[in-house]
Structure formats: structure tokens, C-alpha cells
């Protein structure tokens, strides 16, 4: 049996016998609760009041618990899969959220001790042509920066932290993680961020044990309607979600305006470039 699990102190989101308080159907229709197994290496059964509710829950599995929203769960046991060996618990009580979107993550804390963290997901729609990338540090690793090229859009994220980035929809490749302030050491997998979705990337496992990896969860949040349309034209409703630049400016801030007009006219008329170049040079000297 994994010794980590023995040390697990369940923080909250316990699935247990439930004190039902007559939930309404409406309350459940707009609530989403997911349980994510983010501890590498151990398959478990989750038992409630002595009976298994979630059998064979494997690392990387994500179980929809939305039907239990609004319930107070009590008496949870986490067992090694297929056995009666209780690895975690019993946990006395936990109230499953009754509104909003939550992902409850079983993961390692910074020191490698299993823990559970409920993250509330951002359900706001994205802007037109954008998606929301959420990065969650749920790994036994020090604080990290997200490195993209020369930029660090997330800095000093520690275990249990979550950060949202609103980005143009598209492929995200080449991102890396670095110890806060240090050089990148881990490649983040290439992901496709679709417009109107929230892509959540979880760093899980242990750097020390070599079990560090990534899990992802994709949620539909929709695109803002009635937003200001910065696109090139107004046919937003027909867009396939590709971000549209507001403008393409490919010829300003050069020489004088007269020269530029000349350059443009020459380009259109297919006159030799040398003439325009000469004109531009003359203009610059005059200026």
C-alpha cells in the first residue's frame, strides 16, 4: 500500500454518507462538481458508509460528483482499489458545493503529502476569439513560473495556487515551467485552446519521485455576446473562433508622408523599387 495514502489527511471534499437536504433540481442544473485524482501511482476505491461509491478510481480519472451537489457528505473512506484496506479516513463531514463550478483535486502538497483542494472554476464567458487557460499547481514541487518565450505570465505560483490567463484561441506550444525566478526545467505539453473554453492544466505528481506530469480538464464557458467588436468586420457570428486582429498596419512611421504615398503608389504601379527607395532617401535627408 502506498504510504502516502496512509498519511493523507482529507481536507474536505469527502464523499461519504450524505445527509440529504432535499435538493432542488434547479440547484443542480447550474452546479458542477468534479473529483480529480491527481496522485500518481495509486488506484483507489472511494467508500461511503462502508460501501464503495467510486470503484477503481485511477490517477488521471475525473469523476462527476454533480449529482451530490448541495449535500453534506460524511464518513468517507479511501481504500486501496479492490481491497478493504482503508488508506484514508474516515472523514467526518464535507458539504459538497451547491452552486458554481468546482474541481476537487486529490493531489500532493509541496512536501509530497496527499491533500485535497477544492478549486472554484471561473465560469465567466471569454471574449470573442479567446479562451481561458488556467494553470494549477498541485504537485510536490516548489513554486514555479510559467515561461513563454521571454515572458513569465505566471510567477511564483505555489502548490494550491490557480491562475487564469485569457489568451487568443489557438495552439499553445513551447511553454515551460521554471522554479520561481530560475531557468525552465519542464516542458508544458502542447495544448489547443479553443475559443469559449476554459482549459485547465494541472501539474501533478512529484518532481523528486519522477512522477511529475500534467492533467487537463476542458470546460465550456461560452463567448461573450454583445461585446464590443474589435474585429475587422462585423461578421462575428460567422467566425470559427479564430481571433481576428483589429487592424493590420504594415506601413507607417516611415520617412515623411509624401514619401510614403509615393512608395505606396509605386508599389501598386509596379514601378521599380529603386526609384521609390531613392525618393525615400531624399525625403529623409530633407527632413
Amino acid at each position, binding site marked *: 500500500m502506498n504510504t502516502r495514502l496512509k498519511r493523507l489527511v482529507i481536507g474536505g471534499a469527502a464523499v461519504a454518507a450524505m445527509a440529504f437536504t432535499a435538493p432542488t433540481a434547479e440547484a443542480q442544473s447550474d452546479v458542477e462538481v468534479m473529483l480529480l485524482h491527481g496522485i500518481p501511482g495509486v488506484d483507489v476505491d472511494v467508500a461511503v*458508509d462502508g460501501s464503495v461509491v467510486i470503484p477503481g478510481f485511477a490517477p*488521471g480519472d475525473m469523476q*462527476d460528483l454533480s449529482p451530490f451537489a448541495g449535500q453534506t457528505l460524511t464518513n468517507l473512506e479511501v481504500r486501496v482499489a479492490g481491497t478493504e484496506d482503508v488508506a484514508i479516513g474516515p472523514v467526518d463531514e464535507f458539504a459538497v458545493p451547491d452552486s458554481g463550478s468546482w474541481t476537487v483535486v486529490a493531489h500532493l502538497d509541496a512536501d509530497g503529502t496527499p491533500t485535497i483542494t477544492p478549486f472554484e472554476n471561473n465560469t465567466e464567458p471569454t471574449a470573442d476569439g479567446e479562451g481561458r487557460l488556467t494553470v494549477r499547481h498541485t504537485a510536490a514541487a516548489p513554486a514555479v513560473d510559467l515561461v513563454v518565450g521571454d*515572458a513569465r505570465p505566471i510567477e511564483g505560483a505555489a502548490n494550491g495556487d490557480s491562475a487564469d*490567463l485569457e489568451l487568443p484561441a489557438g495552439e499553445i506550444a513551447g511553454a515551460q515551467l521554471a522554479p520561481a525566478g530560475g531557468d525552465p526545467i519542464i516542458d508544458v505539453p502542447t495544448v489547443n485552446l479553443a475559443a469559449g473554453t476554459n482549459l485547465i492544466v494541472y501539474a501533478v505528481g512529484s518532481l523528486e519521485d519522477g512522477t511529475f506530469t500534467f492533467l487537463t480538464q*476542458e470546460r465550456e464557458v461560452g463567448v461573450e455576446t454583445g461585446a464590443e467588436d474589435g474585429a475587422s468586420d462585423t461578421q462575428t457570428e460567422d467566425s*470559427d473562433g479564430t481571433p481576428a486582429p483589429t487592424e493590420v*498596419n504594415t506601413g507607417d512611421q516611415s520617412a515623411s508622408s509624401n514619401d510614403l504615398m509615393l512608395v505606396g503608389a509605386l508599389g*501598386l504601379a509596379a514601378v521599380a523599387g529603386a526609384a521609390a527607395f531613392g525618393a*525615400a532617401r531624399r525625403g529623409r535627408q530633407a527632413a
Partner: protein
Amino acid sequence: MIGRGRPHDAGDHDHDHGAMTELAPPTPPAFPPPDPGDAHDPAAAHDPTPGRRRGPLVTLACVSGVAAIALGSIALLGGDADDEVVLDVTDVIADEPPVTIPPVPIETLAEPTPDERLANDPEGPNSTTASDDAAGADPELSPLAELLGPRYSAVPEEIEPRPRPVGVRSDAIDIERFPIRAVGLEDDGQLEIPDETEIGWYQYGATAGRPGATVLAAHVSWNNTTGPFFRLGTMEPGDRLTVALDDGSSRDYEVIERTMYDKDSLPRNRIWRNTGLETLVLITCGGDFNPDIRRYRQNIVVYAVPVASTAPVSAS
């Protein structure tokens, strides 16, 4: 911009379209240098249309960093620690025997709607019974198990990054000496344009060989000199273009249209898309110049479509 505040969110989400780039490791030249003998030009040897006119092959002088990876529009945002609640109920773990709860009134529970949720697993939720035979052998499966929603896999699929354009050549205009780098959006939402020494590939659009529009944009003039697309306005239908990709492949296109648009009238559905007919789109500025804002009032757009000879089937 519409406010992005949300309940339970103490942090203000800075919504910054800052464009940023990463210089990738040096890549080999987009196009091979010309062979003096020409008869054994490796490019020509693989050219399925040997009869067509070619411009001189010029080695790209500077292609390191061409496959730049740009990931624009990333908000600077620190750890959003206020966003979640880490529950620690160590002290509430019961020493007493567990409380027994009355049976669950099943009819009060809403049916889960799996199709409303986006899972990574395209096959949909895993079967809870199929996921572990050993668990199925457990005689004590709680009635609560039937109430669970679907189970998904959060293990991401491995995605190979798309090949990226690193160079473009034409038989009509001299553009192959300019390296290409990936560009995104500026803070104010306009297209990021490299200086006069480079051509920008719009990384949120398509790439050559994939559905949608591969957009290459460059200055007509900049820094008191001509830009890479200085002569774009002279391209005519029938002109050929070849895009070199960082995986070593290339793709041939034929110009089908050249159109001038007012700056605010670029057709979004033709240019900014990742679906539909594969099209190569070259954009620069032209037309009237507005001296007040020192900008052109129009964009020149050249559309090109793949020529049949570059379809994969004819590669052999």
C-alpha cells in the same frame, strides 16, 4: 472591454494582450542554397512542376529564430491564491463512529447530462465498471454509485505542435530572403508586425497544409526603407508561391486574387480562420496614405490556393 469580474474572485484579472515571442533554436535555411550546376538542384529535383519558371534561389541569410514561438496576449497574473479554498478539516475527522444517514431519495437527484460537459476523452466518460475489474469484484457497491455522474479521463492527448512557416518564395517578387517569425496580437488588438527585416506568420491562424488561412503579413515600408512586401501589390493571379515549413517540407500555391480593402473592412471569414479551404493570405498596406495618423487607409491582400502538384498524393 467588458469587465471580467466574477464571484468569489478577489483578484482582478488583468487582461493584457501583450505579445511576446520566443526565439527558437536555429533552424536550417528555409530554402536550400542554389546549386551552381542547377541541374541537380535538390529543390528542383523534387519540384513536381519542373517546367515552371522559378526565381533565383537565394539562401535565407538569417533564419535562426525564424521558427519563433510567440504566445501573445498573456495576462500577467500571479498566483490566484484567493481563488480557491483549501479545506483543512483535520480537526473534524471523527473519532466517533460514523453517523448513519437515511436512504437517499433518488428521485430528487437530477440526471447527469454528460454531453453538457467537455471531457478530454472523445469517447465520452469511461465506464465505471470497466475501469477496474478488481473493484467490480467488491460485493459492497453502494447504491450511491448509481447516482454518480460520468467519469472522464484528465490525461491529455499528446499533441504534436503544428509545423510552422519559416520562409516564402515567389517567382514574381523577391521575398525569399526574409525570414518568417510567428506573430500574435498587440496590446490594442492589432496584428503584431515584425520590422522591415522579417515577415510575420499569424500564429492564431492556420499553417500551410492545414485547413484555413495561413496569414503572412509584412510591411510595405518601414524605417525609411522598403519592407518585405513592398511589391506585393504587383502580384497577379497565376503567380506561384512556395512556403517552407520547419519540418523540412514545403507547399506550393498559386495566386488567385489580389484585393485592396479599407482597413476596417478586411473580410474576417476569409482571412482569420482555421477551418475551410486551405488558403495562403499575404497582407500588407497600400492605397491612400493618411498623413494625420501616418498610416495607409487600405490593406492589399493576396490570396493563393495550393496547386494540385503539391497535394500529398503526388509527392511520389
